[in-house]
Structure formats: structure tokens, C-alpha cells
């Protein structure tokens, strides 16, 4: 709803933090402090006035909900009845709930299908599109960007029809090769991969464009020197491209991983979590319990736990990267 949408899903977040900008700001701030001298903090009034709208709205609609989620997770809380303090029982219960744990496992499986596919396709695309220029590059970049901005509702509608059993284009296409129609969204063993396809389709564009920006940043001279030394395509990829892109790849891995783990529109609209809960991803599980349960302490506790787990995963991936850097020297 808030920044979390743009920040965590990556959709629409079109620029990454720039350290260069931060670094250049430091001397500037020092400079102004020197000029201001004894008039330090003279900007308090105007600063607080101009900050007020953002800070007040964030407090009301993000910080208060977060604090009350933390608080309510210790209560047997309900919209309709008096609540009762239950200590850690909600956390214990949700962690022992097979449905919740299964939904997280399913989310991880979904992310495992989506993220490597997106990354490999984007990597290939970036290395191919590197050499494109002019109009063709413009057309290709704009075309792959468009799926990233389309509403999840529309994506769900279109892909449901593509997957239609008797008249969908996918089964028709497979039929050309003599393959029998497949019930993509009704077969519990196929439904989750079937949802992974539109997820990949939506996620590919921005990932590929960020990867392309990274590839274009690698000086041509590296490749020329490697080619002179007789390095082939594969060696150039493993010794030049991938190491140069390490941090870009890591950022995209984390952003796409957390985004696909939090996907809700596709299962909500295409399968309602079915068949047999095969597509009940964690956020849909929580959403269903938020909207259907009488006592909501337990799903609130589950949502908070998931949030902590996501943070821990991101942090540990960064830790791995840093230690690797240390080995490299």
C-alpha cells in the first residue's frame, strides 16, 4: 500500500539507491553548516512544516498499524468480541498450523520456479540486447517493460483464458504436436507452475532492463582484451560479465524473491488458492484468514513472522555476498 509496494515488489521502482549521490551530499551539508555557524538548526520550523504531511500520514497508516499488529498478536483479538491476552500462544499456534507452514513452503517453491527463470532469461536478454541500438532497442525495451506495468487483475484474466481447457491457445498449440489438452489450473500438480508463468511474464521486463543497464556499464575494452587472449563467449561470461554484475544480480535476486513470495493477485483471481490448496500462497492464506476468521490474532502473528523471515533471508544473502567479497580480497 505504501512505499512497501514499490520497494518490495520492484514493479515501478525504476531506480536503485545511488551511493554517489549520498557521498556528494556529505561535504555539501558540512559546507552549509559552516556558513550557518551559530545559526545551526535555524530551519526547524520550516523543516517540520514541510515534513508534517509525510510524517503524519506514515505514522497513521504505517507505524500505528505496525505497532498495533505487534500488540494484537498477543491477544485473542476479534472485531466482534472482547479480546483476551494469550501471550505467545498465537505465535506457537500459527507455527504449528500445517496450513500456514504449507503455504510458506508453497511460496518458497513458487519463488524457486519464478526467480531462476526470470534471472536466466533476463541475463540472456541483457547480453543479447547489449549490441542492439536505435529503433530496434527502443522497441524491444518498451515492449518488455509494458507487462511490468499491467494490472495483476488483467494479467489474471488474460492468462486464465490462455489456459482454458477446451478453447485456450496453449492447449490448441500443444495439440498441433499431438499432445492431449491439459487442465492447467484444475490439476493440483500443474496449477502452481501454471501461475509461475504469468509471474515470470510480469517480472521479466524490469529485471531485464536493470540487468541490461548493468551489462552496458561493463567497458567494451574488457571484452576486447579477453577476445584477444582467445577467451570464448562462455569464458567471457564467467570471468567478466557475471563478476561485474554480482551486486546487480544479488539485488534482483532478493527483490524478485521477496516479490514472488508475496504474490497474491494471481492465485486470488485465477485459482482462489485451489485446486486442493495447491496455489494457496502465503499472502493469500493470510488474506483469507484476515477476511474470514472471527479471531485474528493468529493470522496477524503469522504475517509478522513472515515479515521477520523475509528480512532474515535478505540479510543472510547479503552476508553471504560480503563474506565472498572478503575471500576475493
Amino acid at each position, binding site marked *: 500500500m*505504501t512505499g512497501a509496494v514499490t520497494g518490495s515488489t520492484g514493479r515501478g521502482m525504476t531506480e536503485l539507491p545511488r551511493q554517489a549521490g549520498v557521498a556528494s551530499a556529505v561535504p555539501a551539508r558540512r559546507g552549509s553548516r559552516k556558513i550557518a555557524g551559530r545559526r545551526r538548526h535555524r530551519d526547524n520550523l520550516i523543516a517540520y512544516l514541510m515534513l508534517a504531511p509525510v510524517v503524519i500520514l506514515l505514522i497513521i497508516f504505517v507505524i500505528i498499524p505496525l505497532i498495533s499488529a505487534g500488540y494484537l498478536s498477543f491477544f485473542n483479538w476479534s472485531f466482534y468480541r472482547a479480546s483476551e491476552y494469550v501471550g505467545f500462544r498465537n505465535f506457537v499456534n500459527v507455527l504449528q498450523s500445517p496450513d500456514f507452514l504449507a503455504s510458506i513452503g508453497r511460496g518458497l517453491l513458487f519463488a524457486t520456479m519464478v526467480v531462476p527463470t526470470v534471472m536466466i532469461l533476463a541475463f540472456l536478454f541483457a547480453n543479447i540486447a547489449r549490441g542492439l541500438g536505435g529503433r530496434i532497442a527502443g522497441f524491444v525495451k518498451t515492449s518488455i517493460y509494458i507487462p511490468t506495468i499491467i494490472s495483476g487483475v488483467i494479467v489474471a484474466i488474460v492468462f486464465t483464458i490462455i489456459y482454458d481447457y477446451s478453447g485456450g491457445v496453449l492447449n490448441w498449440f500443444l495439440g498441433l504436436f499431438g499432445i492431449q489438452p491439459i487442465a492447467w489450473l484444475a490439476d493440483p500438480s500443474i496449477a502452481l507452475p501454471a501461475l509461475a508463468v504469468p509471474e515470470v511474464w510480469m517480472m521479466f521486463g524490469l529485471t531485464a532492463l536493470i540487468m541490461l543497464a548493468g551489462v552496458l556499464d561493463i567497458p567494451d575494452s574488457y571484452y576486447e582484451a579477453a577476445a584477444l587472449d582467445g577467451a570464448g563467449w562462455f569464458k567471457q561470461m564467467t570471468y567478466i560479465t557475471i563478476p561485474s554484475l554480482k551486486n546487480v544480480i544479488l539485488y534482483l535476486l532478493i527483490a524478485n524473491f521477496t516479490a514472488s513470495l508475496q504474490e497474491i493477485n494471481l492465485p486470488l483471481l485465477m485459482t482462489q488458492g485451489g485446486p486442493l490448496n495447491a496455489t494457496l500462497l502465503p499472502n493469500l492464506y493470510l488474506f483469507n484468514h484476515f477476511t474470514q476468521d472471527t479471531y485474528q490474532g493468529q493470522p496477524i502473528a503469522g504475517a509478522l513472522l513472515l515479515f521477520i523471515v523475509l528480512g532474515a533471508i535478505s540479510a543472510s544473502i547479503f552476508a553471504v555476498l560480503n563474506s565472498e567479497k572478503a575471500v576475493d580480497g
Partner: protein
Amino acid sequence: MAMKERSSVRVPRVIVGVFFGLAALFPLAWMALSGFKLNSDVLATPFSFFPPSWHVENYVQILVDPDFSRAMMITFAGAAIFTIFSIAINSMAAYVFARLDFSFKRTLWVIVIGTMFIPNMAILLTSFIVVTKLHMLDTMLVLILPPLASAAQVFFIRQFYLNIPIALEEAALLDGAGRWRIFTRIFLPLSQPAFVVVGVTSFMAYWNSYVWPIMTITSPNLYVVGQYLANFRVSRGPELGLLMAGSMLAALPVIILVLIFQRKIIGNIKIAGLK
């Protein structure tokens, strides 16, 4: 490119690149064309990409459907208001964090940026409780107000402001111009490239919202367009040509925005700071 490529390398590059582009566009192109088909032709076998016969009726019929056009207009109005106000308040905060010196600056910065890392789902239910207590349910305000302040946008605009040379405002400061005057006279006119990016992002976020609206909006005359389409699919499922036409029209505003601003948005995808 410094290196001039041989055509034996270049031609496959072009073919594969264009293939990626077409694969990305295929589902949308098929949706747009299916809007011209009869309901029975959308799922007809054998598959046809182009309509066997062209029918503009679907597009006309969905446009004159008062529920659809109302949903389109009210979503557009909401998205426009949302975009303008989010740019206004987030750019003010960005300017303050980029240039002003005040007490508790660090603390406030950490709090604001910290909100960027809170997943929606962690606060979805308690946000619902908050808007219920504020009596905002089933009003436009519940769609506009809660997501208005955005740490990601404050961060993005601040980065942009940090790159504006300080010399530009020094003369104005020496002349005794106030901070507000410097913001409106010097920073705002220079902000257009950043505002294009955050503006399109805001518009898109509002236009594409679905989960929050279905929790908070119950009056059909306030439905956002995604909500309308999802309901249409359930209640009028067999009218596929109409559904495709409606989906296409609902996708159009964001596509047009991206086409208008493509250079500024796609050109802005940079990776500095990730090396």
C-alpha cells in the same frame, strides 16, 4: 558501441531481441484483438490470433456501459488526485531531507526510510482497523490517503535533489530568500525528470490496486476499474469479447503513460551504487 559488429553476430541479436519483445506483447495484443471478436470466437478452436470477423460492438458496448465508464472515470480521477498529492508531499519531505538542517533529522530519516521495508501484508489487517476507526471505509479517501506518503518516493526524489548543485541556491540564500521560496522557485522547476518517474509510479499503483479496494470499497459506484473487471468476470463470464475489450481499455491508460514518457522512465533505469 565502440566495436563494429559483423552482421553474422548482429542479425541473430536482432532476431532474438525482437522475439523477446513480441513474446512480451503477445498476450496483450491477443487480448486487444479478442475485443473485436464475437463472444463465441474468443475461445474457438482452432485458435485465431486475428478476429475471423471484426466487431467494434464490444468496445462500444463496454464504453457505454454506465458501470464500466463510471469505474474508469472514478479510478482515473482518484489516480490523478493521488498522483498530484503524493508528488507534492513526498517532494517537500525529500527537499527537507536533502537540504535543511534541523533537530532530530537523523531519527526522522531512519523512521521514514524504515517504513519502506514493511511488507503490506504485515499491516494489512491493522490498516483496515485504522481506516474503520477513522470512518473512512467506502469513501475515495480510503484509497487515496493511506498510500499517499511513500518512503520510496521520498528516497528517490531526495537522491535527485542531492545532485542539484548547491551553488544554484546560494545566491538566493544570500539574498535572504526563505527555504520555501527556494523550494518552489528553484527546486520544483528542476524536478520534472524525477516527477515523471514517481508520478507514473503513483498513477500505476493506484490504477492497478486491487486487494485494498476489495477490502475497503463496497459501493459499486466507487469501484476501481480492477474491481469492476474482476466482478464482471464472475457475473458475466461468458461475455468474453466484452471482457477482453474492457480489459484492454482498462490497461490502456498506463500503457499510454509509459509510451509518452518511455524515454524518461526507461532511460532512468540505472544501476549506479550497485557495483
